């Protein structure tokens, strides 16, 4: 009996110990959740892989003081394309298109603000677009960036397919 008393030590009751541990765990969990919840990626506006266009033919011809750029596009990807950006470079050393072409001389497309060229009824995979002629200054490079309209959370959002951009050097005569 004397030995038993000498060995007994005071301590927190086991039940209280459990309660304290569980409470600490819940608090730490709440802190971590609050911090990490913003890192969960939301559904982003992005172009699906497999979008691809091909410049079948492009030519630039003089028309008095301006030039006429004739463009034939083909959809050689797996998804339909709703629109595209067409930009040219007016400096032979600049390697990206900086000037959007918005003046449509002929062709069944619609030019809207921001330099977007809308293809009525989409350009389906494996099909050629109708020939479109644009008015331009003398240009050295043409760049086509396809655009798709994606439905994200019930809203129609414009997705720019930068990865599927194509460029072609041109020679305006």
């Amino acid at each position, binding site marked *: 009996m004397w030995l038993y008393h000498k060995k007994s030590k005071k301590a927190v*009751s086991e*039940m*209280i110990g459990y*309660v*304290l541990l569980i*409470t*600490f765990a819940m*608090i730490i969990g*709440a*802190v971590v959740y*609050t*911090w990490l*919840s*913003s*890192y*969960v*990626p*939301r559904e*982003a*506006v*992005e*172009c699906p892989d497999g979008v691809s266009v091909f410049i079948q033919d492009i030519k630039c011809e003089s028309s008095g003081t301006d030039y006429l750029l004739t463009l034939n596009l083909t959809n050689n990807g797996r998804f339909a394309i709703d629109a595209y*950006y067409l*930009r040219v470079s007016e*400096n032979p*050393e*600049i*390697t*990206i*298109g*900086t*000037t*959007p072409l918005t003046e449509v001389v002929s062709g069944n497309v619609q030019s809207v603000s*921001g*330099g*977007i060229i809308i293809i009525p009824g989409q350009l389906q995979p494996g099909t050629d677009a109708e020939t479109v002629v644009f008015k331009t200054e003398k240009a050295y490079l043409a760049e086509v*960036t396809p*655009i798709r309209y994606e439905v994200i959370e019930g809203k129609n959002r*414009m*997705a*720019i397919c*930068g*990865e599927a*951009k194509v460029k072609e050097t041109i020679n305006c005569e």
Partner: protein
Amino acid sequence: MSKKGVSPVIATVLLIGMVIVLGMIIFLWMRSLAQETITKFEGENIELACDDVQIEASRVGNQLSISNIGNTPIYDLNIKLTNPGVYETKKASELFGSDWSRSGLNSGGVFSGEASEIGDAEGLTLVPILLGMSESGSQKTFTCNEKRHGKEVF
């Protein structure tokens, strides 16, 4: 030998209460230490949006042309101008002044501007600056990581 003391039930309740209060204090203190979270696109951390930024750039003499070919609007750019042994960083809005739109470079947008510093620099690195919403509801800018998202222009 009877000793007066607190009833075990009351002691348990008091302990749990004190732990919860202490936990709340620690939680609020840690939150104040941590950097305020800036979000974009409906609550997503803005650091994730930096991964989606795609830009192309071309430099000729003093002229710098930038194209935003991604789906993330860029509010501003940190332009790091490097020369042997020295570098300087300027924002595009400072370097190009009113030529740089106040709303920045929207997705699909193109910018072309001239500045003498562009021509003088041996190397250029473009680091996107995005605009997001802080926890307090105000708009705040966030500069993406240069090593991961910086675009070198040759």
